[in-house]
């Protein structure tokens, strides 16, 4: 088998290290998720019971169907909770390592900021900032490339949605200044 004709090579400069310590096991997360689901089932179940989960002369009340679903959800999460506690396999599995978590946060936090910025700056300006910033900070790509890519992508989006397809997006001061 020859490997001489490999032509496409992409490097990943900020790849997570393989030997990074674990932050949480699958079991821990499973338990937390089951507890949250149980709480959700209780809340929704109570709300539906209050709305009316019984029968009227015309048929089931509004809360009937979701009330029993909450019971099913609650039961399944309770079972899941017990199963997760007893599972040796899940305890030994890694949910996320520290290096992986850092990388996930490297996307999640900018996305969060992007959603926040969108409310004040409008979608297009926020997109420009997200793409340029992300490429530069996380991808370590040359500044001019980052800015150019962000500009072209945002412009294409603007032309496609705002001008060609008339899909209205949140806009901010820049668009207002340009009279759009």
């Amino acid at each position, binding site marked *: 088998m020859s490997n001489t004709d490999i032509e496409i090579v992409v490097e990943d400069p900020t790849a997570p290290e393989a030997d990074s310590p674990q932050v949480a096991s699958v079991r821990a997360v499973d338990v937390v998720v089951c507890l949250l689901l149980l709480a959700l089932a209780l809340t929704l179940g109570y709300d539906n019971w209050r709305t009316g989960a019984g029968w009227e002369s015309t048929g*089931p009340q509004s*809360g009937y169907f979701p009330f029993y679903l909450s019971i099913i959800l609650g039961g399944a999460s309770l079972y899941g909770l017990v199963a997760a506690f007893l599972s040796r396999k899940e305890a030994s599995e890694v949910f996320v390592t520290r290096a992986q978590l850092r990388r996930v946060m490297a996307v999640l936090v900018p996305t969060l900021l992007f959603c926040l910025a969108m409310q004040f700056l409008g979608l297009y300006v926020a997109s420009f900032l997200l793409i340029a910033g992300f490429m530069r900070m996380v991808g370590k790509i040359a500044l001019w490339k980052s800015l150019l890519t962000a500009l072209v992508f945002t412009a294409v989006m603007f032309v496609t949605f705002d001008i060609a397809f008339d899909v209205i997006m949140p806009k901010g001061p820049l668009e207002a200044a340009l009279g759009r």
Partner: protein
Amino acid sequence: MEALGLLMHGFAVLLTWKTLLLMMLGLVLGIFVGVLPGLGGPNGVAILLPLTFTMDPTSAIVMLSCIYWGALFGGAITSILFNIPGEAWSVATTFDGYPMAQQGRAAEALTAAFTSSFIGSLVAVMLITFLAPMISSFALKFGPPEFFAVYLLTFCSFVGLGREAKHKTVISMSLGLLLAGIGMDTVSGQLRMTFGSAELLRGVNFLVAVIGLFGISEILLTMEERLALRGHAAGISLRVVLSVWKDLPKYWVTLFRSSFIGCWLGITPGGAIAASFMGYNLAKRFSKDQDSFGKGRIEGVFAPETAAHASGTAALLPMLALGIPGSGTAAILLGGLMVWGLNPGPLLFVEHKDFVWGLIASMYLGNVVGLVLVLTTVPIFASILRVPFAAVAPMIVVSCAIGAYAIQNAMFDIWLMLGFGVVGYAFKKIGIPLAPFTLALVLGNRAEDAFRLSMIGSGGDMKVFWSNGLVGSITTLAIVLLFWPVIDKAFSSVTRMLRPAKA
């Protein structure tokens, strides 16, 4: 044949420059989505859905289904050239596809993959052409109890036949059904589970949830991985294509077997993933030379690809005929239909003939055009992978945000999308399947309406679900499927007890 005449009419609807152009655009976008890591069929369709909001339904669905075909084709490119399955159903393609590329036979493997995808889809589309009208005309006789029984069957088969832990499937499904119920109750107009919030009044939009669950969470998951890759570049010459096609008749048994498996698993909610593995394993088992599998055997590419595509296509059959999607992507297409005010289900064949036959015709045409397109443009798409993920990821985030916002013009939906992204990430990592959730969310209201209408009709008597032979057998089958693992275990232990007695 009535179906044939209607199909010809469908082709006539399609053959305009505008539709053909949209078709090409959809295919290119789809292949793009299939090639990129962190994006796949369902995400691509979900993210690109808003683009189609301003089109007429026929153009929109043609474009969306072409995105779907494109994504199916695209998944094969990365599996063969880079040993990275772009989609879960391409995993089996890497077993023999990548070794072939290593031996310098990448062009051959790609041609085999695309051709067999085409054959698989074609078989499934033919099945749809002749079976869907029959099923839907049969389903026109359905009343609310029958429909509820069919929904129940769908949900139960997910629990009983799914490979994930049963309670996790139940969690996923009941959560989806609950979230579908938030907001205004469609029967009585009463508000429920809104907790006084005006934002929750509208309910949880299906597409927003899907964009979060499949788009955002997929990026989070992809970022965890090491994203460096090495792969082969390949161009396909006409000579290679012809030589592969010349050998095609030799493998007709494999192709036929895989198409059959794919169609069967596509209609029942088993999905393309199971189909591709089953196609591969069966091809291996029936082969005279089993050891050569996994070392670059062309049959090992034919078998899974045919099955995956046949199943991906056949998943549209129950969606068109009954309004029940057979896969996650079909569920999203169904969500799209509802956005355009089309009510999926048997009535679609009566009320929107143009639309349905246009869609079916577009499946034929899209596959032919897609085959030609991928065969000629593989080198371009392979080089897309040179674009670093750090550039792709924020663009996907932006596209997701545009998609989520465009649906209802609500800022709240953006936050909802983000929330679903995190939920999807956690669910995927602890093994809660997302497909039942998607299905439950899109079918939730219809299932509840069907249930309540049948209850109103019968005066609250549960026996209505066994009131005649048809509804009774569907309901019974649903319950059998729900407890299938238990029944199966009991069955095999009985046979095990009997076998030693015989021997």
